[in-house]
């Protein structure tokens, strides 16, 4: 009989490590996740307790996927829908693998590197994740009857049965549940809710004979609605108080520019990050070291981040009419707001003696996706949850900010603060003319 393997987790207690993971857990792409902190630079700047890693989050997500699948199997059994019960049982290992691997393609300081990878390497963490999974774990997973193609389809929400992908990739997926509770615990805010109760409020809506049309939805009950509202409030609060916290955000934007510069100047580093075979060795520690080795701007910025000697916020405003007069070219470009902020940064620094002494940042608040309820409308489709809390959270806001390098701040901060809005309005007016 196989011995069962467990790890102890501060959030979920004992987590059982399945056999397929026991076989591969010491491989480099997985070990690397131990050297990537879930909240990246936030541990260095605002939240010293946030030392939890991507590896621990991946284990937690896999664990919750298992719990949710078991709960759904029980419900399907009670409803007598044997087709759906069978589909869940047959796919349990694949779903747990997809939950474990969902972040394997993320680099260190993940969201910082995301933008850099898109801009300079024309790839993203999803594509990278699929490559890493197929190149490194295909044989090991398929030996354990886990088809890697199916895992990839679930991870990227492309499985023909939507309810399977929804478990790891939807408005109330196990990834979000784990990272919210885990992040809040490690930053010290300790927001919490009853996980088992929350997961028990999810169910599958649709005809068992037509799994292509089945969705993971919320039970149609007051308890379920209350439970998901609490989840959404925590989600929103975490964005306001943790994910977009000012100083860490400034450090992240500084690091983003340092990496962009380093990749322009160091071809070897560029090759290392763009090649999936070498990307799997890039972790937080060696990436910061590599960036620090690139003389000039990149070296300086890494030194400043390490000393917590950060840029300051020079100015900020809401990016909306009538605060700014916008034209269609600018509005269309804002759909890729990271690229817009980089372009505004370049324009603002045009006449400056050093690059990136001013950094523009555009922050788009995250809005929750639609939440479907286990009740059909007259067209036979599940209805969307209605809730004043959900409506309030769905209201999108955009903020535009400019950060300034400390020396320039001392010399010219006051005068720049007075003119910056005019400069940005001028840049918007001239946008792609």
């Amino acid at each position, binding site marked *: 009989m196989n011995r069962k393997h467990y790890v102890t987790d501060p959030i979920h207690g004992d987590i059982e490590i399945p056999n397929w993971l026991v076989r591969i857990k010491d491989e480099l792409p997985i070990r690397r996740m131990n050297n990537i902190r879930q909240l990246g630079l936030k541990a260095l700047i605002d939240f010293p307790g946030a030392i939890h890693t991507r590896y621990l989050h991946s284990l937690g997500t896999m664990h919750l996927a298992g719990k949710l699948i078991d709960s759904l199997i029980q419900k399907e059994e009670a409803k007598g829908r044997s087709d759906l019960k069978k589909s869940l049982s047959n796919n349990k290992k694949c779903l747990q693998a997809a939950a474990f691997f969902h972040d394997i393609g993320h680099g260190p300081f993940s969201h910082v590197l995301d933008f850099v990878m898109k801009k300079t390497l024309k790839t993203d963490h999803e594509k990278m994740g699929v490559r890493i999974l197929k190149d490194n774990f295909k044989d090991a997973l398929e030996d354990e009857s886990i088809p890697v193609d199916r895992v990839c389809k679930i991870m990227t929400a492309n499985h023909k049965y*939507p309810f399977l992908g929804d478990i790891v990739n939807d408005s109330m997926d196990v990834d979000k549940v784990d990272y919210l509770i885990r992040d809040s615990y490690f930053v010290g805010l300790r927001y919490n809710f009853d996980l088992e109760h929350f997961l028990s409020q999810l169910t599958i809506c649709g005809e068992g004979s037509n799994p292509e*049309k089945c*969705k993971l939805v919320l039970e*149609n009950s007051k308890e379920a609605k209350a439970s998901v509202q609490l989840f959404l409030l925590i989600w929103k609060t975490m964005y306001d108080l943790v994910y977009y916290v000012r100083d860490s955000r400034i450090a992240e934007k500084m690091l983003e520019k340092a990496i962009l510069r380093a990749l322009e100047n160091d071809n070897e580093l560029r090759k290392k990050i763009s090649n999936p075979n070498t990307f799997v060795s890039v972790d937080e520690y060696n990436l910061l070291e590599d960036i620090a080795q690139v003389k000039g701007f990149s070296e300086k910025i890494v030194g400043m981040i390490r000393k917590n000697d950060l840029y300051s916020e020079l100015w900020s405003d809401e*990016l*909306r*009419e*009538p605060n700014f007069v*916008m*034209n*269609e*070219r600018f*509005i*269309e470009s*804002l*759909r890729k707001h990271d690229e817009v902020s980089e372009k505004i940064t370049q324009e603002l620094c045009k006449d400056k003696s050093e690059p990136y002494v001013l950094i523009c940042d555009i922050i*788009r*608040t995250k*809005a929750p996706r*639609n939440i479907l*309820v286990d*009740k059909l*409308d007259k*067209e036979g*489709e*599940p*209805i*969307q949850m*209605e809730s004043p809390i959900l*409506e309030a959270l*769905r*209201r*999108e*806001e*955009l903020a535009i900010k400019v950060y300034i390098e400390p020396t320039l701040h001392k010399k010219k901060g006051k005068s720049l603060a007075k003119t910056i809005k005019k400069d940005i309005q001028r840049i918007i007016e001239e946008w792609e003319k």
Partner: protein
Amino acid sequence: MKNTRDTFLLLLLMYFGKKVHGRTRFQKTVCVLKYKYKIPFHFKFRSYYYGPYSDDLADALSLLQGLNLITEEVEDLGEGMVRYTYKLTDKGVKIVNSLISKTGDKKIVSRMGKYFAEIQRMPISELIALSKKIDLS
């Protein structure tokens, strides 16, 4: 029209519609305008629960709301059901008027007005059925 921007076309659509009732109707309207009537939207659609759906379109609508160019109103239909209605803000109307006067392709404006009116007259069930027949490849 090579350089027509999706956000401009969305604003134009709302300009003709005054109000667009329902997220589902909005998604299917844009899908039918793109594939059946060849209005040059670039949004990518995929088959989804309610027929074709575009994440990019949902994201663009959300952006236009954030910029205060359109508003989304919620109407309670009872029994836990709601309907979302989109319309242009005053600022949105001002921008569309200026865009219409500047655009080099006046045809796109009249075609949008004509086809949108046709689609508006369809009951939602008919629109969903039509959108589901579209080949998205």
